[in-house]
Each structure stands twice: as structure tokens, then as C-alpha cells.
């Protein structure tokens, strides 16, 4: 079977500016891939090409083996998408909207009715199912957008910043909905500029900047590759500059940033054993360590360093 998403040398040229630049990417079946990059990296542009909203200036993009730039109708048959925050027809209700989109996809009436009930429940919009969408809030529309993307039980979901426009609770709910899909035969390709969100939902990431792919792989492998991480340390007694100095000379410590007198952050590079040794060495200095915690996620430093390198 074909990989659900295959992007080959994809390029999008906006009057000489390459928003997407010879991008190559494969998303395997049942993988959840986070498409990460700073604002303006080219995430939305890539996703718009995948979803028939933009034409490509060059290259191909296959969805379930069909080139969406040539045959969008068949390429999009098994795909659900949420791009930007879409607007809905204000005169239609959620039920009518789902009925419309479902019938365009060839779903039977009974199937549409059953799925409509299910997806509206999933996104907690049942209460509003018969209200015209006209005055819905952005958050409600975003939920509905997610509902319509899932109406036909597609195996591939393409999402552009799926939690944008939602309040914190809505964000958690959407993340839970997406995590729930792990149980089924789903492939997710979702863009985000939020690292934590991607780490929560996806096991793989594709990093993009200036239209070019910087890295692609499982979160675990990418993190291993960088090796460095930030460790937050809290001490019972205040520490002086002598102690800080000593710690900065320990093996693997790249940097130490003091916070308040009982608190500092270490950027550390090394294996697990080295990290364990660091802790015991600090204790031999007589420090009463209250907390020794990895923060600032290693992916973040990878992300930052890759982006820095590409600039």
C-alpha cells in the first residue's frame, strides 16, 4: 500500500519567493507527524497544496498514491482536513453542513446521520447542532471544522494549527480527540508552532524552516541526536558564585544560568550515566538538592539550533 502522504520536490514560488523549497517528505501509515517550524516557515503553504487550496509551482504531492496536484478529487477522497480556521456558510446549521459535505463524499444518508451524531458529540457541539452557524464563536467553528474533517472516518487527517483559536480547555479537548485516534487506523499530519502540542500528540516530527526540511524522524531519535537538555535545579540553601563555578566545570555542563539564589538551570550534554553522575557530584559539594528536573525539552533546543543553523 502507498504511504498516505508523499511529498516530492514540492516547491511553491510566490513571485520569486520560495515559500516551499524542494520539499521532500514521507508520512507513513498510522504515524502521527508534527509539522513544526517558526511562523512563515512554509507549513501552511505546504498544507494548502496538499488540500487543493494552492497549486504547486513544482514537484508532486501524493495522497494515498494519487497526485493531488493533478487529480485532487481522487487524492482527497480518503482525507479529512482543517486548514486555517475555516468559515462556514452562516445560513446552514452544523447538521446541514455535515450533510452537505458528507453527501459530496458519497456517504449514504443513514451513514451521515450516524456519523454526524458521533462527531458532534466528540467535539461537544451536539447542543448547537440545529443552530445556524452565523453567530458561532471562532472556537465553535474550529470544533466544527474538526468534526467535518472526521465525518467520513478518513484514514488520513491533515491539520493546520488545529488548536488555534481555541481557549485552553478547547485546546486540551482537541488534543485528547486526536490522541484518541491512536486506537484506530489513522495517520495524522499536523502543523503547529507549539512544540509542547506536537510532543503531546505526535511521535514523529518534520522540522521546516524557510520552506526547507531541516529534520524528520521520531521525537526520540531526534532528541537523542542533540543530546543536550536543560535541567532545572533547586537547592535548600542559597548557592554562591564559587559553587556555580564548580558546577560549570563538571563534565557535560555546557552552561549554567543562575535564577534566584536557591535556583539555577544547567544545560547539559551527555548520556544518562553522565547525568546521574552530575547529580551525585553536586551532592558531594554539600548541596541539599530539593529538585533536579529536566525541563525546556530537548526537542526545543534541537529546534532552536536547527533553525539557527539554517539562517
Amino acid at each position, binding site marked *: 500500500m502507498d504511504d498516505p502522504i508523499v511529498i516530492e520536490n514540492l516547491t511553491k514560488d510566490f513571485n520569486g519567493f520560495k515559500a516551499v523549497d524542494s520539499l521532500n517528505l514521507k508520512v507513513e501509515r498510522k504515524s502521527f507527524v508534527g509539522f513544526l517550524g517558526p511562523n512563515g516557515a512554509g507549513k501552511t503553504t505546504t498544507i494548502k497544496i496538499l488540500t487543493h*487550496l494552492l497549486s504547486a509551482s513544482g514537484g508532486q504531492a501524493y495522497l494515498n498514491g494519487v497526485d493531488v496536484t493533478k487529480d485532487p478529487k481522487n487524492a482527497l477522497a480518503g482525507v479529512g482536513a482543517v486548514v486555517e480556521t475555516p468559515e462556514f456558510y452562516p445560513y446552514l446549521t452544523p447538521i446541514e453542513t455535515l450533510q452537505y459535505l458528507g453527501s459530496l463524499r458519497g456517504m449514504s444518508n443513514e451513514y451521515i446521520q450516524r456519523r454526524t451524531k458521533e462527531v458532534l458529540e466528540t467535539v461537544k457541539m451536539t447542543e448547537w447542532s440545529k443552530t445556524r452557524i452565523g453567530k458561532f464563536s471562532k472556537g465553535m467553528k474550529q470544533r466544527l471544522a474538526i468534526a467535518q474533517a472526521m465525518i467520513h472516518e478518513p484514514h488520513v487527517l491533515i491539520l493546520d494549527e488545529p488548536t488555534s483559536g481555541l481557549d485552553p480547555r478547547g485546546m486540551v479537548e482537541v488534543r485528547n480527540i486526536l490522541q484518541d485516534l491512536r486506537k484506530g487506523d489513522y495517520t495524522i499530519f499536523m502543523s503547529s508552532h507549539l512544540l509542547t502540542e506536537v510532543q503531546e500528540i505526535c511521535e514523529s516530527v518534520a522540522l521546516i524552516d524557510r520552506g526547507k526540511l531541516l529534520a524528520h524522524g521520531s521525537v526520540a531519535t531526534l532528541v537523542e541526536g542533540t543530546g543536550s537538555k536543560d535541567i532545572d535545579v533547586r537547592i535548600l540553601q542559597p548557592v554562591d558564585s564559587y559553587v556555580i563555578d564548580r558546577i560549570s566545570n563538571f563534565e557535560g555542563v555546557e552552561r549554567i544560568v543562575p535564577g534566584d539564589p536557591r535556583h539555577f538551570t544547567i544545560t547539559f550534554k551527555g548520556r544518562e550515566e553522565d547525568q546521574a553522575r552530575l547529580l551525585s557530584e553536586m551532592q558531594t559539594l554539600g548541596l541539599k538538592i530539593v529538585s533536579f528536573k529536566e525541563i525546556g525539552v530537548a526537542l526545543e533546543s534541537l529546534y532552536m539550533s536547527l533553525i539557527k543553523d539554517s539562517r
Partner: protein
Amino acid sequence: MTLPSDLVQSGIVARYEFLKHLRSRRLLGIFILEIAIIALILLIPPLQGQDYPSDPAKFAGMFVQWVWILIVIGSTLFAGDSLVSEFQQRTGYLLFPNPVKKRVLFIGKYAASAGIMFLALAVFYAVVAVFVISVDGSISGLMASSFGLAMLFGVAALSIGYVISSFMKGSTGALILTFALLLLILKIVDGVATASKARPDFSLTFSSGVIGYIMETPYPTDFVQTIDFGGRSFEFANYYPSVTVSIVVAIIYIIVTVALAIWLFDRREMSA
């Protein structure tokens, strides 16, 4: 689950687009306008101390010469921003990622607009027929011809609205341009052509005159008027569109503009 054919999909699009039009306040606006036009025309003869024409064709003719205005307003409201809004209101983000060709979306929307135009014109002609029958006791068969021509020119005007809709950036601009083009710009062209004694057959507004003239027996023919003004005489040409030429002109407008609108819509990107 197999995808429906293009034809079935365009039917689905048409059905929901039609529903959208039915629920919009614009359709109500058109109906109110129709009532207003009919009421005004009914008021004029009594105010002038005259009876309504006893010839049903003549009586109906008083109303149907205003149909072009209705068509222009209908085209503005039901075609002018039909495509623009998908981009400007961002509903395209919902619609375009579905497994359906852009041209199928176009055809569905176009069919729905034509359906609404039919509804608007049918209501107008029906109300006129009711008044004509209640005053004159009978109705002229020419009204059916006029209605058929009105529908043809209605669709031609819609097609122009769709071209404008396929490239304009904003709804307001598209609406204004559609309205101005159909009502003012083409009329000015007609006037300039006529003044320089060239038959403006190519103009849709000129040709649309058949909708009203068809009610006249005999059908009016061209003539040249000489008017003396300050010792000098001026010649004014009066041209009347021929029925066959007008029909051909309308059909050419439809074919050319629909092809152009589909081509533009197909290529237009969801970039904002």
C-alpha cells in the same frame, strides 16, 4: 464508499447553494422590489386619469419592460459575489479540500443561481399575469415568449456576474462592478453606438430590449428621427434588437463568459 460522479456532485452543490439563497435576505429583497415595481406601475395610469390598457399584451408590456432592472439586481445579488465570497469569507477553506473538482463546484453554484433567477422572474410574471387577467379578463401568449427571453437574458447576466465574481478580490467591489457593468456601462455603450449610428447588437443590454418589445404587435422596426435644433437638423437613429440576433447574442455571452469564469475560478488560489 465511492465518490459520486461529477454530475451528482454538481447537483448536491446546487441543492445546498439554492438553500443558502433561499435563506438569505437577498431573495426577500428581490420579492419586495418586484412588488414595489408592480405597485408603482399600477399607480401611474389612475394618477394620470387613464384606464389600464384593455389589450392584455399592452398592459403586460408596461410591466415587462422593467424586467431588465430585476435581472441586473438579481445577477448582482445571486452571482456577483458567489465565488468571491468563498475566498473573502474564507468558506473556501471548508469547501475546496473536499474531493470535488472546482468546475463541479462552479456548475453547482451556477445552476443554483439560475434556479433563483427563475424563481424571481417566475414570481414577477405570475403576479403581473394575475393583474392582467383580473383587469382585462385574458392574458397574451406573448407573455410566455417574454418570460423565456427574460430567463435567457437572466442567465446571460448571471454569467457576466460569475466572471466578475471569479477574479474580484472583495464582495462589495464585485457587487458594484456587476451592477454598474450591466446597468450603466453597457447602457452608455449602447448610447454612444446609437449616436454614431452603429447598431449595438453586440451589447447585452441593447439585446435585452426584446424582453419588452416582444409584447408589441407589430414588432417595432428601426427608424431615423430628424430633429431641428437652432436651425440645424440632427438625425437620431432608433434601433430595435431583432429577436433572433438577440437570442444568438445572449447565447454567445453565456458560452464565452461561463468558459472564462470556470477558467479563472479553476486557477484562483486560496491565498489570503
